[in-house]
Each structure stands twice: as C-alpha cells, then as structure tokens.
C-alpha cells in the first residue's frame, strides 16, 4: 500500500511542473488548473496513507520504499529511498494540504498576471521538491529536495524579475542559502566517513557510539544548514528581502513549509543532537537569539509582509528552541511547526488579500479601518492573529505554551526569554491588526478596498478554521505519543514551575503586549509617514538590527578584501612568474639584436673572432 502510493505523492506535482514548464504557451489556458489539481491529488494520496497507517500498530507505521539505486561506488551505495513514518506523514499533510489551498488562492491572486503558467509551474516544482525533502530516507535524497526547494524559492522570489529589488532579493536568498548548504553538505560528507552511509536509520543507530567530538561537529554543521534554510541568526537577513516575491509564495515557502525545513532537519537528526550536548546548546542559543531578533524587527516595520516575515523568523526560532531542548521538545517543535503553518499561511494570504484590495500597497500606514471593507479577510486574519499571540484555546496557544513550558524546565532564563518573545509577538501582531483593520482610514486617493473573490477567501476560511482548531492534535497527548517512536519518549515531568502557572504567566505577558500596542498605536492617530525623530531602539529595529550591516562588515567587506588580495597575487605573483621569463628574454633580445646591423664586415669580424676563440680553446685544451 505505502510503497505503491508514496511515489505518486512526489510524482504528481513533479509531473505538473514538467508539463507547465516544458509545455510552454500551449498550456497557458488550462495549465494553472492542472497545477492546482495535482497537489490536491497528492493531498488525497497523503490523506489515504495517513488514515491507512493510523489503523496499524506503531512499528508498522514506518515504512521505507526503495525506488532504485541512485549510485554506487566501491563500498558507497546510495539508494533513491523514501521513508514514510510518523514524522514525514505529518509533513506530507501540511505541505500538500496548505500547498493545495495556496494553489487555489493563487488562481485568484495571480489571475491577471500574464506569466501565470510559469508561476504555477514553479509552485508545483516547489511542492515536489519539498515532498522529496521530507520523504527522503537518507541525507543525500534530503539534500536533493533541499536544493530543489532552494531553487524554487529563488525562482519565485525573483518571479517579478523586472523589478531590480526582486531580482536582488532572489540572489541574496540564494547566496545566503549556499552558506547553509555548505554546512549541510559537509555534514553529509562527515556522515559518509563516520557511518559509511547517510541513511537515517544507520546514522540514528550509530550516533551514540560514534564519539562525542564527531557528533558535536556533525550537529553544528547540520545547525549551519538549518540556519541557512530557516533564516536563523546569523543567516537570517535573506528572509525579509524574500518578501519581494508574490504573496502566495511568501505564504507557502517563506512561512508554512520551506523555512521550516531546518526544524525538520533538526528533529530528523535527533539522535545526533542527543549525543552532542554542545551542539544542542548551540541550537538553543541560536534559536533564542533568533526568536527575539525576529520579533524585534517585527515591531518596527511598516511593510505588512515584513512584519509577518520577522514574525516567521521569530516563530521558527521557537520551533528550533523546542528542537534544541531534546526529547522534551521534539514533538512540540513539530506541533508548533504545524500550527504555525496554518496560522501564518492564513495571515500571509490575508495580507495578500489586503494588498489585492489596496492596489498592491504594502505600507500599513496607508491602511486602516479595513474591517468593514473586507469582513471575511478581517475575520480570518483575526483567527490567525489570535492563534499567533497565543490567545487561550487557539492553536498557537497550545503549541507555544508547550515550548515555553519545556524551555522553562530546561533552564529558567531560556523560558523567560521565550516568554518575553511571546510578549513582543503580541505587541507587533496587535500593532499590525490595529494599523490594518482598525484605527481611521488612511487610504490613498483612488483606492477602493473591496472583498477578494471567493476563490481567495475560501482557502482563508479553511486556514482560519485550522488556526483555531489546530490544538486538537494535543488532545490526550496525541502528538507526543504519535511521534514518540521516531523522536523518543519525552522524559517524565521533573520538578519546577507547574504547567498551569506558566500558561498563566504566558497569558499575562501576552495581555501586556496587547495592551502596550493598544496604548501606543490604537489610542492615538497613526502618522501618515513613519516618524523620523525616534529613539535608538526603534531606529535599530527599523534597520533589521543591522543584520545587513553586520553581514557587510564581517563577511562581504573582508570577502571583497580577500578576493582583491587574491587578484593582486594572481596578477603580480602568478602571472608575473609566468610572463616574467618571456619578458626577460624579450628585453635581452631587444638589446642584443642590435648586433644584426646589416654590415657584412662586422659579421665577418664576428666569424673571425669566433674562429680565433675556437682555435685558442683547442690549443688550451690540447696543451701538454
């Protein structure tokens, strides 16, 4: 059953990409519809598999499918293997489910774009690559999907390539991801040398016995890979620029699925992290820094998509934090990943709907009072909003709460920072809500907001429902039990603050954040342009905490200096060595060719002189 259906999950969207991108303009009219149907078919396959395996015992739920031998050389044998287990089954549902909804939404959003077919081709390519990533049974197939989503992300960020900013953003994302990919590829190489295989079961089984130093290196390299793909500090700067892409892309790739691949990688490599406490600590530190970093950026942006991008960064920080907490957190990392996939995709699509109504204006200072003009968008967005700030009962409340709880048990200051992050989240999301849907109208002339067509609001409604109800996965610790065979049993609750106290604290902190946003933004008129006489924290946050400047100073500038120096060495050292000989010969010849003066008598003198020298030499040699 699994081995028959599983390949189709990947093959269907891949087929869509091939038909649309190779088929050319012939597919213009029906291509987008085909491209929407195929992920839906994929979703049906995933759902069938999920329901099918739910009825089986734990150990039968994990099945690997050997498609073919990818390559073999000596002792090295890499198979194109797929692995369907509890972890990938959840990802399958998320990717194909949210992916299908976003395809449907895109039919409305991109209706008037003349390159619509290409857009859908790229989207299908992305879905296929992302499915390859999560279904891989070894790191090498995972890497194939990893690079595939990177390519699709590049193509889609730069989809409106006529805008120089979009082209530059695509390039930036691609280049920064290469840094992370270097980490992942080195990790794969290290796997080969350490275990002789990159297959997950071999690596997971061997991790405990492989020596802590190796495991630490492996964990740190994987973390570098995850940082690149998941926009974690220090490789975070590309995500904000990635918002240049069409909004459905931001929702699918840069919120719900691709950027969470790093979290998937961490959870998938849990055995390595368990065996390397140093690497685990590094994950926690990176995650904590990122969750605050992203949240602080979110508070200062006026561009609605950039607020959401900062928020995504911050939420992925929460997931990474959970992944770094070990067996206590893995399941919650995935849980938060799923709920975040729902509510963030919902909000991104809602933002797209708002932009659609406001003539593609992204500045929230030009919005205001949209709740009456776009009631469906407002209500669905509100569901996402309540979920992300962690309003009791909504999906985000359950998932974030669990992470803060687990963090608190790890160490109280990590929990406190995560709690603080939740407060900032509440602040910036409330600010976004107020500036967009409440306060007074600040619309530009000639802008007449209207509700989006039902093909766009339909997916919003579904995602809003999921944002509200995502918490049911936690009922009776279902998700922990479901994932336990993969990531290990969570440890018994140790002593510390009781869970209800932490929930209460979280709700209080969130309430403070909301109230602060109300006092700062909701009670007074919103200035039409961003005030310039601001204190330094605001100025710093507006500059993305100098993320670009840090990269410029510490990476790009030294890099330029290095390449400049290498160029000089090449030019004057290597080239000089190579051309120096001929140049010297040339200069020598320039002087001595003057001997060829054309006078026969001078030649005769040379001949005579030469003959005399030869004779003298003979005499000297033969001197007895």
């Amino acid at each position, binding site marked *: 059953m699994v081995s028959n259906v599983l390949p189709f999950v990947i093959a269907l969207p891949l087929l869509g990409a091939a038909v649309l991108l190779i088929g050319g303009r012939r597919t213009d009219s029906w291509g987008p519809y085909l491209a929407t149907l195929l992920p839906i078919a994929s979703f049906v396959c995933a759902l069938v598999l999920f329901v099918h395996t739910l009825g089986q015992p734990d150990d039968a739920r994990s099945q690997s499918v050997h498609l073919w031998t990818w390559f073999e050389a000596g002792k090295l044998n890499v198979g194109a293997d797929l692995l369907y287990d509890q972890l990938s089954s959840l990802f399958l549902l998320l990717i194909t489910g949210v992916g299908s909804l976003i395809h449907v939404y895109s039919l409305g959003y991109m209706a008037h774009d003349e390159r619509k077919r290409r857009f859908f081709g790229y989207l299908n390519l992305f879905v296929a690559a992302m499915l390859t990533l999560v279904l891989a049974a070894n790191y090498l197939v995972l890497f194939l999907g990893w690079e595939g989503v990177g390519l699709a992300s590049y193509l889609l960020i730069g989809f409106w390539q006529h805008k120089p900013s979009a082209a530059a953003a695509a390039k930036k994302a691609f280049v920064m991801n290469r840094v992370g990919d270097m980490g992942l590829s080195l990790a794969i190489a290290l796997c080969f040398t350490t275990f002789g295989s990159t297959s997950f079961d071999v690596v997971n089984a061997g991790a405990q016995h492989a020596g802590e130093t190796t495991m630490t290196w492996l964990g740190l390299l994987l973390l570098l890979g995850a940082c690149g793909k998941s926009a974690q500090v220090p490789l975070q700067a590309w995500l904000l620029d990635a918002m240049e892409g069409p909004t459905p892309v931001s929702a699918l790739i840069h919120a719900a699925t691709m950027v969470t691949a790093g979290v998937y990688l961490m959870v998938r490599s849990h055995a390595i992290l368990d065996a390397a406490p140093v690497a685990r600590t590094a994950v926690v530190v990176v995650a904590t820094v990122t969750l605050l970093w992203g949240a602080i950026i979110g508070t200062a942006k006026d561009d609605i998509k950039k607020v959401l991008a900062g928020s995504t960064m911050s939420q992925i920080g929460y997931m990474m934090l959970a992944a770094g907490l070990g067996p206590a957190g893995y399941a919650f990392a995935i849980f938060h990943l799923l709920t975040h996939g729902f509510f963030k995709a919902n909000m991104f699509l809602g933002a797209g709907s708002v932009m659609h109504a406001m003539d593609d204006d992204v500045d929230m200072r030009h919005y205001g009072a949209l709740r009456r003009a776009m009631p469906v968008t407002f209500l669905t967005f509100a569901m996402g909003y309540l979920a992300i700030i962690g309003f009791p009962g909504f999906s985000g409340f359950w998932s974030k709460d669990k992470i803060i709880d687990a963090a608190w048990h790890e160490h109280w200051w990590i929990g406190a920072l995560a709690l603080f992050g939740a407060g900032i989240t509440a602040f910036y999301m409330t600010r976004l809500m107020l500036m967009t849907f409440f306060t007074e109208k600040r619309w530009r002339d000639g802008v007449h907001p209207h509700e989006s067509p039902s093909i766009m609001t339909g997916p919003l409604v579904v995602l809003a429902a999921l944002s509200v109800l995502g918490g049911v996965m936690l009922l009776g610790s279902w998700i922990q039990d479901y994932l336990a065979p993969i990531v290990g049993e969570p440890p018994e609750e140790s002593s510390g603050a009781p869970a209800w106290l932490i929930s209460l604290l979280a709700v209080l902190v969130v309430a403070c954040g909301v109230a602060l946003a109300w006092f700062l933004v909701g009670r007074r008129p919103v200035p039409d342009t961003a005030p310039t006489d601001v204190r330094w924290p605001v100025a710093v946050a507006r500059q993305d905490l100098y993320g670009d400047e840090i990269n410029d100073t510490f990476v790009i500038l030294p890099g330029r200096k290095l390449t400049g120096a290498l160029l000089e060495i090449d030019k004057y050292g290597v080239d000089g060595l190579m051309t120096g000989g001929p140049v010297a010969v040339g200069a020598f010849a320039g002087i001595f060719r003057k001997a060829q003066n054309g006078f*026969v008598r001078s030649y005769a003198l040379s001949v005579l002189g030469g003959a005399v020298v030869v004779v003298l030499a003979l005499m000297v040699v033969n001197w007895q």
Partner: protein
Amino acid sequence: MTDVTPYLIVSAVLFSIGATGVLIRRNAIVVFMCIELMLNAANLSLVSFSNLHGNLEGQVTAFFVMVVAAAEVVIGLAIIMTIFRSRRSASIDDASLLKW
C-alpha cells in the same frame, strides 16, 4: 719528407692578408678577391700537409675547394653585378638593409 714550415708560413700570411682585406675593404669585388685569397691559403696548407703525410687526400680536398670556389664566384659575381646595377655602387656597407 720536405720541411713544410715555409709553405705554412706563406699560407698563414696569405690567409691573414685575405682576412684583413675582408675586414677593412668596402669594395665588394676586392672583398671577394680577398675571400679567394683565404681559400687559396687554405688550399696551400692542404697540399703541404698532403705532401707531409705522403697521401693524396689533402690534394683531392684542394680540388674540391677550387670547384666550390669557382661555383661561388659565378653566383657571387652575379649578385654583386645585380647590386651594382640597382645601386650604382659596389660598396658592401651600402647594402646593409637586411638587419634588425
């Protein structure tokens, strides 16, 4: 066995005169004659040593030299004539265009 030293001295003197002529004269015809002088000085040495060693190899070589010299004269004089016709001068220093 006759003493060949005088012959060799004459040969050396002839060669030196020829060589000096080649080096210091500008008239192509004179230079040419000086070259013949050097060739004949060499011939004289060959014949002298041939006599000294009592075999004919040196004499045969001298004949070869004469034949080659005759052929060379034909070509050399033709070249000198051509140069003289085109330049109205037989000075070898005037014909110095073939240089760096």
